[in-house]
């Protein structure tokens, strides 16, 4: 047993992270939660239609994943993607405007919650189709390889997506061609009502990596630095031309699958269990932030989202005369 217990300062320094950077990551997690809470509220008040998939409880997974990535890397996001967008550096104002179907939104109000993309920042979009982004990652990886850059692409998907045929085809192709892809599976224990216990006969989804001859890692997805570390390793590997990695981040969604979910497939105790390992509280505690400071930070995050809402509310609706625009280039 080692006698010297590392301080959080040591832990950050070891990773080349400053305290300011750590605080910024905490802040992003708080903004994600505030965004999701606002989204839920707007929905409940009938101000948005359609559906949404909230990532409350999964904030460390989003922020830890984007931490080691560069602005010129690519992102292929999932339906549960608000958090990943914010972690990627997307503007909450333009996201909120999209969520409210406004012309000023990232997709001019045409896409909505499930399709937020920001091509300028190489965010190639959330996806309404489970596993819809996984095959695209093969093409992005191939393009990076052909263009001879050292970019990487992250392909984010849920546990459920790993049971689509597209997952299998894509990981194999990325493997045989050594493509710079980070396959990032957010295992939040359920695909809608289907638990991973019922949907898989392997203990860990990361074990499937063996079938493609690539590394597979399972990580505590509610531990921000742990996520950051496995992703950093996979990114280094991909940039060096050694091909893809499959990462499985174990996490949990606190809310129902989408707008209407009676959650008969899980127990309140199970939800509480996971809430006791809340990613935000955990990282705040790790940084030795007292509850007063934490609450002040949360209020700050809430304000950022309130401002986004004001922007979105004041933004114009798309003009019906433009309805045919944008189908063809």
């Amino acid at each position, binding site marked *: 047993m080692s006698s010297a217990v590392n301080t959080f300062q040591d832990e950050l320094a070891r990773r080349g992270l400053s305290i300011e950077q750590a605080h910024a990551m905490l802040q992003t997690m708080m903004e994600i939660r505030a965004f999701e809470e606002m989204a839920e509220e707007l929905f409940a008040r009938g101000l*948005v*239609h*359609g*559906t949404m998939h909230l990532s409350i409880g999964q904030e460390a997974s989003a922020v830890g994943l984007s931490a080691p990535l560069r602005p010129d890397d690519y992102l292929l996001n999932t339906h549960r993607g608000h958090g990943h967008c914010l972690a990627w550096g997307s503007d909450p104002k333009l996201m909120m405007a999209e969520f409210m*179907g*406004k012309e000023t939104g990232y*997709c001019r*109000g*045409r*896409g*909505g919650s*499930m*399709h937020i993309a920001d091509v300028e920042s190489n965010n190639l979009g959330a*996806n*309404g*189709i*489970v*596993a*819809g982004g996984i095959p695209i990652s093969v093409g992005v990886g191939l393009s990076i390889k052909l263009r001879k850059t050292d970019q990487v692409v992250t392909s984010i998907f849920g546990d*459920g*997506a790993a*049971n*689509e*045929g*597209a997952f299998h085809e894509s990981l194999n192709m990325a493997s045989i061609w050594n493509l710079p892809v980070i396959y990032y599976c957010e295992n939040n224990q359920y*695909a*809608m*009502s*289907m638990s991973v216990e*019922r*949907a*898989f006969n392997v203990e860990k989804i990361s074990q499937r990596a063996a079938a493609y001859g690539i590394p597979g890692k399972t990580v505590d997805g509610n531990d921000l630095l742990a996520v950051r570390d496995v992703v950093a390793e996979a990114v280094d590997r991909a940039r060096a031309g050694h091909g893809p990695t499959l990462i499985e981040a174990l996490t949990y969604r606190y809310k129902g699958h989408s707008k209407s*979910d009676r959650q*008969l*497939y899980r127990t309140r105790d199970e939800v509480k269990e996971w809430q006791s390992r809340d990613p935000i509280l955990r990282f705040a505690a790790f940084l030795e932030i007292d509850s007063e400071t934490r609450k002040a930070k949360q209020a700050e995050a809430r304000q950022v989202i309130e401002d986004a809402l004001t922007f979105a509310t004041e933004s114009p*609706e*798309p003009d*019906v005369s433009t*309805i*045919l625009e*944008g*189908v063809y280039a």
Partner: protein
Amino acid sequence: MRELTYKDALNEALFQVMKADERVFCIGEDIGVYGGAFGVTAGLIEEFGEERVVDTPISEAGIAGACVGSAVTGMRPVGEIQFMDFVTISMEQLVLQAAKIRFMFGGKATVPMVLRMPGGSGTGAAAQHSESLENWFVHVPGLKVVMPSSPYDAKGLLLAAIEDDNPVIFIEHKLLYKTKGHVPEEMYTVPLSDTKVVREGRDITVVATSIMVNRALEAAEQLAAEGIEVEIIDPRTLNPLDEEPIIRSVIKTGRALIVHEAVKTGGYGGELVSRIMESEAFDYLDAPIRRLAGLDIPIPYNRTLEYHTVPQIESIVSEVKRIVRGEV
């Protein structure tokens, strides 16, 4: 008269047929304790257990294949694709296997499966959850394509589809699930390939599918107040089509409007127009046959844009007026 919603009518059909026929089972994503994304299979798992109400991983090609394989070996699967959009992932099994097995095997096998799926827009679900892809299937000999527009037809057509020895693509509409209508308690079938005259009228024939039948009916009420009598026809089964009632109607009215939600280009309307033009009804036409259909765009998320993408009651009213008044 007992009234049920479209959703409950489908649910009752499944209950009754599963009780009556051991070969019938349901398979799909979240159809068990969740009861299906739209609640159509609610309560089935409690009654029939996990063996006959099979929750699957998210694997649409697998679901379609499981239906094909079990159907060809004596079962009567009723698969559910959570949103019609996702059937694009099942296409190979449906188009190249289910539809062709009987023919390729010289008529010696049957594939008595039903694949249910909700189509359509109007819920704000955007471009990847709002498709109307019925014509993809209409284009494939060997598949039957059914689109019920009322609770009565939903139950009767589903039971007929399950009884049928062919693969049937059964397309429900998300906005119809909550609509109510008369539904008898006992089991009954509405025959496949049996086009229905839903409303009689002398001035124009409106052939509509799925939810557009309901919108056409409302439009017809408004038009009647202005002295225009609309005859509304619901094919119910798109393929194989019972075309005779449509042709007879056009001979009577001399005018026709086709209304469907799917995009106009390459849509079912083109097929219907051709059927009318190739028939003896051609000689009776007093005006060009028109199509009112979805715009040739993906379904937008924004509520107002979404609304204007597909035919609505008002657009049916104004199109009928234009045709009847000779403005087109």
